[in-house]
């Protein structure tokens, strides 16, 4: 047997290794930018050099042929350079304005929608789902595909008051992150425990420690060491499932989908905000999740039609107030909207400010 190869522990490469020469030349010396049309950015350097960027959506989980198609397009129009965004859009950059329209036509013909710039709905950040994750309640890739099919015009145009970042997560770990609209699995029943397997598979003290509400205790079941859940305390978060797979939290019927709104990472205007629960109990209805799409579109279009220029979803709702949000969207307001977690009292209205 040949000796195993030691890895070259090189870390990340210098970003300039793969940067278009015009970007390298003007690194740190850009003067201004604008958006000549949706899907296109124009950046002008202090030197006068100009770069046009055409942005397009992808399916993120890409087969090698899709990636090669993107490479062909980059070779044809962009001197062989290509870049991806944090939200898995692809960006093609050229210094030749005459290439912009043919590049857009080529991308659209190859099935990549051009858009995602400015005040549009960006691509939905999401996670692996049933395709690869070990704890998924749904298939984020499928949810995202089904949603983007319906939101594609909102991606291609800049018709929103501000940018809209939608996220999807297959469990409450929320790998998709905070979003103006977040589509997340919300389990509604405690885990179903396979007591035959717990002792052999789970490190019981760390499973007990993982529970945010101390609902798990050691127990002897059928003569075997196992764990039991105080179902009155359990918040059905699924935190015990990753360290202890015999505590099955995913349920084809009772793992529901919840919609959260008004999350925002940026400090632009307002401080960053967490997203807030607005709807729950939606069925995990693969392969097209029509009930989810209906709620998302309702919220999105209510925001589009009512918010002022540059208000993000959460800022708009802060201005108009939650009563008006529920009134406009016709979503029901329930006892589950009252925050009961620690610190949750700061989410209550401690004032005489009311909306009628």
């Amino acid at each position: 047997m040949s000796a195993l190869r030691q890895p070259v522990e090189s870390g990340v490469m210098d970003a300039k290794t793969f940067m278009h020469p015009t970007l390298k030349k003007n690194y740190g010396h850009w003067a201004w930018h604008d958006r000549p049309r949706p899907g296109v950015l124009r950046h002008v350097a202090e030197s006068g050099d100009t770069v046009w960027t055409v942005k397009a959506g992808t399916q993120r989980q890409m087969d090698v042929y899709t990636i090669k198609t993107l490479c062909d397009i980059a070779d044809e129009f962009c001197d062989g350079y290509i870049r991806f965004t944090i939200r898995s859009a692809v960006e093609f950059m050229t210094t030749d304005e005459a290439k912009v329209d043919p590049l857009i036509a080529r991308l659209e013909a190859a099935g990549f929608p051009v858009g995602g710039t400015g005040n549009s709905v960006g691509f939905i950040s999401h996670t692996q789902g049933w395709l690869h994750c070990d704890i998924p309640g749904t298939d984020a890739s499928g949810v995202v595909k089904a949603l983007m099919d319906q939101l594609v015009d909102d991606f291609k145009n800049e018709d929103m008051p501000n940018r809209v970042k939608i996220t999807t997560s297959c469990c409450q770990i929320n790998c998709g992150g905070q979003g103006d609209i977040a589509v997340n699995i919300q389990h509604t029943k405690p885990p179903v425990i396979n007591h035959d397997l717990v002792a052999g598979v789970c490190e019981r003290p760390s499973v007990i420690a993982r529970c945010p509400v101390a609902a798990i205790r050691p127990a002897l079941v059928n003569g075997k060491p196992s764990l039991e859940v105080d179902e009155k305390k359990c918040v059905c978060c699924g935190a015990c499932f990753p360290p202890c797979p015999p505590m099955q939290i995913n349920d084809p019927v009772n793992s529901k989908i919840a919609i959260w709104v008004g999350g925002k990472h940026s400090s632009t205007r307002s401080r960053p905000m967490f997203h807030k629960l607005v709807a729950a109990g939606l069925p995990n209805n693969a392969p097209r999740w029509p009930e989810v799409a209906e709620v998302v579109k309702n919220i999105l279009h209510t925001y589009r039609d009512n918010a002022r220029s540059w208000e993000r979803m959460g800022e708009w709702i802060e201005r108009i107030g939650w009563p008006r949000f529920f009134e406009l969207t016709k979503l029901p307001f329930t006892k589950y909207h009252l925050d009961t977690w620690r610190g949750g009292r700061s989410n209550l209205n401690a004032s005489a400010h009311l909306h009628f």
Partner: protein
Amino acid sequence: MSKTMPETPLLDQLESGPWPSFVTGLKRLANDEGKPYADYVKSLLGQLEHSYETRKGYWKGGTVGVFGYGAGVIPRFSEIADKFPESSEFHTLRIMPAPGFFYDTKTLRAMTDAWAEHGSGLIALHGQSGDIMLQGCRTDQVQPVWDKINEMGFDMGGAGAGVRTSAACIGPARCEQSCYDTLGAMKSIINDFTDDIHRPSLPYKLKFKFSGCANDCANATQRSDVAVIGTWRDDMQVNQDEVKAKVAQIGRKEFINQVIRMCPTQALALNDDDTLDVDNKSCVRCMHCINVATKALKPGKDRGITILVGGKRTLKIGDLMGTVVVPFMKLETEEDFEQLVDLAHRMLDFFADNALEHERTGEMIERIGLINYLEGLDLPIDPNMVVQPRTNCYVRTDGWDDEVRKWNERNSAAAE
């Protein structure tokens, strides 16, 4: 004999519609007869269809890695391998891209060729931490494909209780608003922490992210333990001719609505001659007016970084945003970058020494109090760290005079 294509009536419904379909991509691989991945992906499609039918996932973890590293491969074994034996092993390799997700097509093609030879042919660009996700590899192919990718100059990403792969906004490569070299800072930090990325031995994960301004395009504030965000100390740059042009373009009323009224600290006013009046002492560097009037307004010239620590999602104590621990620090010279890397090491060491198992930095700070974190790292206290001072009187204040002396000493030292 090649395996036959499974029936996938549910997945087939994800092939129609205008958005690119990952199912179509998987089918293309599955139908690519003669390629090593064809039967592998057929089997995968069978299992995925089964998940769509039963609404459950069927992957479990395990232990798979590459020689010399303790993390970076995400092992996946099928729980229903009896039904779908060809794809019983479907591991992911996390590979770190260059900061900013830049590629040339030669490199990307070479990567896809290696992956088509050894893996499933499926790649996610990119994972939520910022990795190239080579998804779907048999155990015996992990080392050979890793060797090829590593020889191309790429290194493995993080997983488990260690430093994770990082992400940065496009920064100075193409953005006039970026207040520091996000791409360079990410490289400086990550490449000094490769041991903690590849051999995880921390209480839990530790993430760094880099955004060039308060727009936070890298989603650092909430999605990283250590968020490095660009800002400036002097007055913002105003080109009054361009302000006038913008007012002429969109009209006074709209300029007032979109720029003046949206300023969170009411630091802006429109003068009678359509020039802009900026109260820079009230400005919080939020970027809004600069975003709207891109040609007219720019960050100031005395630029640097703000560091926020402790962002994370719900598990276990609830969502936390990062909060300010360093209001301003220059990041221009080599020494500045060394100082940042040194501070990052102190943050990691303090976390390693003080966090409980499975506790993130933000949770640790919540438990021990921010002051203990600051004193542990020797970071000076600053009113920029609070939204408001304490409102609760339950605190012992008999060290007050000493603290006042420290504050005065620091201020007089700064004045000299």
